[in-house]
C-alpha cells in the first residue's frame, strides 16, 4: 500500500490550465507562440517544485552523503535517505532497502541483466521480451544471451497491439530463465497485463523485470500487487530531473545480484592486491561513487508532485485527450494509426501518412510550435514487425488540452499542403 501524498484538489477532473502554470517552461519568453509540447513519452518538463528542490539542495544543504560527521553532512544524508523512503511509498515497496538509485531506467536494466541474470544464465536457456520493448529493455537481454549462448525470444503481438500470450505457449517452459516486459509501450501506448503475467511467472519460479518508464507518470505503481521481481524507471519521464532513475528489486533478488560498478561507498573492506574485498550491505552495494543527492531529492519531489495531482485523475485526463487526438487524426486523409485497431489506452498515439515521411511531418509541426516525435522510438524490433521504419508520435500529459490537439491537426494539415500538393 502506498502512503502517497493526498491530491490537493479533490475534484474529479484536472484543470490543465492551472497545472500548466506549475511549469515555468510554458511561461518563458523563449517560445514565440504557445508551445504545444507533445513529446512526453521522450521526456517531461519540470514543475517549479522540482526545479526549486534541486536548487535548494545546492544553495542550502549540500554535502557528501553517508560519510561526513558535521551537521550539514548528516542533514544531506538524511535528505537523501528520505527521498528513498518517499519513492518506497510511491511504488509500495516493503523496505527502502529494495530501492537502488541508478542513473536511469537504462542503467537499472543493465544492472539486472549483467548482475543478476548473467551468472545464472546457461547455454540453451531462454529469456523472453515482448515485441514492443524499448531498446533499453531489449539490448541488455540480447547481450547477455549472446554472452551466455542463451536464446532471446519475443512475445509477439496481436493485430490490435496486445501481447499474444495465447500464441506463446512456451513462455513458462522449463528453459525460461527470465522475462523482461514493458508496462506501457512507448510506441503503441499499449498497457500490458503485468500483474497477471508476474503472478503466473512467480508460480513457475521465473523472475520478471517490469519496465515502468512509460507507466510511472500516470499509473499508480504497487510492486507488491504487481508481484514483479524487478522494476525500473527514470525520473525525467515523470517530471523529475535527468541523470537519475530507480531500480526496485525484491530484497531476496537484490541479495543475489552482483554489482555492475564497484568503487567508493559500496564496499566494507578492501583487500590488498588479490585479497578479497567485502561489499557493503544493500542498497549501498549498488550505488558505487558519490550519490546524486540533489537528483534523488528532485526525484522524490516529482513523486510528491504526481501524487498531489492524483494518478487516477491524471490517467483519466491523459487517456481521454489521447483518444480524442486519435479520433481526429484518423479523419485526416492518408493518416494511419498504430495499432490498426482499438483506441489508445494511455497517453501515446503513433501514426504514419501514406504520402509524408514522419520526419517531414514532425519538422513542419515543430516549426508550428507543436513538438511531436518521429523515428523508430528506440523500438526497431517492433517497427520491423509492423513493416515500418519510422512513425510520428504524439504523447500527452496532464496540462495538455484540446487546443494542443487543434494545433497538432492544423500542423499535419499544413504539412499535407506542403508535401502532397
Amino acid at each position, binding site marked *: 500500500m502506498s502512503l502517497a501524498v493526498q491530491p490537493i484538489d479533490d475534484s474529479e477532473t484536472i484543470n490543465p490550465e492551472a497545472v500548466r502554470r506549475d511549469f515555468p517552461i510554458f511561461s518563458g519568453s523563449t517560445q514565440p507562440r504557445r508551445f504545444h509540447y507533445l513529446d512526453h513519452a521522450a521526456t517531461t518538463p519540470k514543475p517549479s517544485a522540482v526545479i526549486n528542490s534541486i536548487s535548494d539542495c545546492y544553495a542550502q544543504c549540500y554535502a557528501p552523503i553517508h560519510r561526513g560527521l558535521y551537521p550539514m553532512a548528516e542533514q544531506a544524508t538524511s535528505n537523501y535517505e528520505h527521498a528513498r523512503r518517499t519513492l518506497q511509498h510511491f511504488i509500495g515497496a516493503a523496505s527502502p532497502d529494495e530501492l537502488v538509485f541508478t542513473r536511469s531506467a537504462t542503467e537499472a536494466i543493465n544492472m539486472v541483466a549483467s548482475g543478476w541474470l548473467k551468472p545464472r544464465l546457461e547455454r540453451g536457456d531462454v529469456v523472453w521480451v515482448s515485441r514492443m520493448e524499448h531498446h533499453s529493455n531489449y539490448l541488455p537481454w540480447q547481450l547477455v544471451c549472446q554472452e551466455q549462448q542463451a536464446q532471446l525470444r519475443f512475445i509477439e503481438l496481436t493485430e490490435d497491439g496486445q501481447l499474444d500470450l495465447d500464441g506463446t505457449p512456451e513462455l513458462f517452459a522449463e528453459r525460461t530463465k527470465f522475462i523482461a516486459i514493458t508496462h506501457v509501450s512507448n510506441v503503441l501506448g499499449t498497457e500490458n497485463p503485468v500483474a497477471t503475467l508476474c503472478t503466473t511467472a512467480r508460480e513457475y519460479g521465473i523472475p520478471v523485470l517490469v519496465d515502468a518508464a512509460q507507466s510511472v507518470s500516470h499509473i499508480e505503481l504497487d510492486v507488491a500487487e504487481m508481484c514483479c521481481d524487478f522494476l525500473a524507471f527514470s525520473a525525467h519521464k515523470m517530471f523529475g530531473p535527468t541523470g537519475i532513475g530507480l531500480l526496485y528489486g525484491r530484497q531476496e533478488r537484490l541479495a543475489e545480484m552482483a554489482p555492475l560498478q564497484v568503487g567508493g561507498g559500496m564496499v566494507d573492506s578492501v583487500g590488498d592486491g588479490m585479497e578479497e574485498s567485502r561489499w557493503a550491505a544493500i542498497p549501498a552495494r549498488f550505488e558505487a561513487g558519490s550519490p546524486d543527492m540533489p537528483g534523488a531529492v528532485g526525484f522524490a519531489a516529482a513523486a510528491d508532485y504526481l501524487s498531489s495531482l492524483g494518478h487516477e485523475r491524471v490517467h483519466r485526463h491523459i487517456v481521454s485527450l489521447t483518444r480524442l487526438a486519435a479520433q481526429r487524426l484518423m479523419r485526416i486523409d492518408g493518416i494511419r494509426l498504430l495499432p490498426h485497431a482499438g483506441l489508445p489506452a494511455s497517453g501515446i498515439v503513433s501514426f504514419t501518412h501514406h504520402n509524408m*515521411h514522419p520526419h*517531414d511531418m514532425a*519538422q513542419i509541426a515543430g*516549426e508550428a510550435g507543436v513538438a511531436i516525435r518521429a523515428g*523508430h522510438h528506440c523500438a*526497431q524490433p517492433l517497427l520491423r514487425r509492423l513493416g515500418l521504419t519510422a512513425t510520428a508520435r504524439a504523447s500527452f500529459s496532464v496540462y495538455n488540452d484540446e487546443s494542443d490537439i487543434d494545433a497538432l491537426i492544423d500542423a499535419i494539415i499544413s504539412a499535407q499542403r*506542403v*508535401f502532397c500538393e
Partner: protein
Amino acid sequence: MIAQDLYKETLLEHYRHPKNRCDGPIQDADAVERGANPRCGDEIEIGIFLQDENIRHVQFRGRGCAICIASASMLTEAVAGLSVAGTRILCEQMHDWFGDIEPAAGALLPNGLQALAAVRQHPARQKCVLLSWEALADAIDKAGRE
C-alpha cells in the same frame, strides 16, 4: 508560410518530382552502392554511369524523407557531366559542410544544391542530405576498384 526555412520550393519540387529516379533495380550501371540510415530507416541506392573519366549519368532509387529524396535528386543533376575526380571532391565538400566540419564553406555550394543549405541549421537532418552523397562516393570507389 511556415516551413519556409527548411523546405524551399526547389527542394519540394525535387521531392515531388525527383530526377533520375528508378522504380525498379538500377540496370547497366558501372557501379551501384547503397546507403542506409538505420536511425530513420531511409535507404538510397546510387548507380553511376561513366564515360572515360567523367560521370555521364547518375540514377537513384529508394525511400526517405523529403530532404533525403530531394538531395538524391539534386545530386543526380549536380554531378552529371563532372569528372570523377571533381565529383569525389564535391562529395568530400558535402560531407564537410553538412557534417559541420567546415561551417563557413556553405556559401560555396554549387547553385543546384543551394536549396539544401538550410538543412545545416538542423543537425538532426544532416544525415538525410548526406545519405546519397556517401553512397555516391562508395560507388565511385567501387567503380575505381573494378
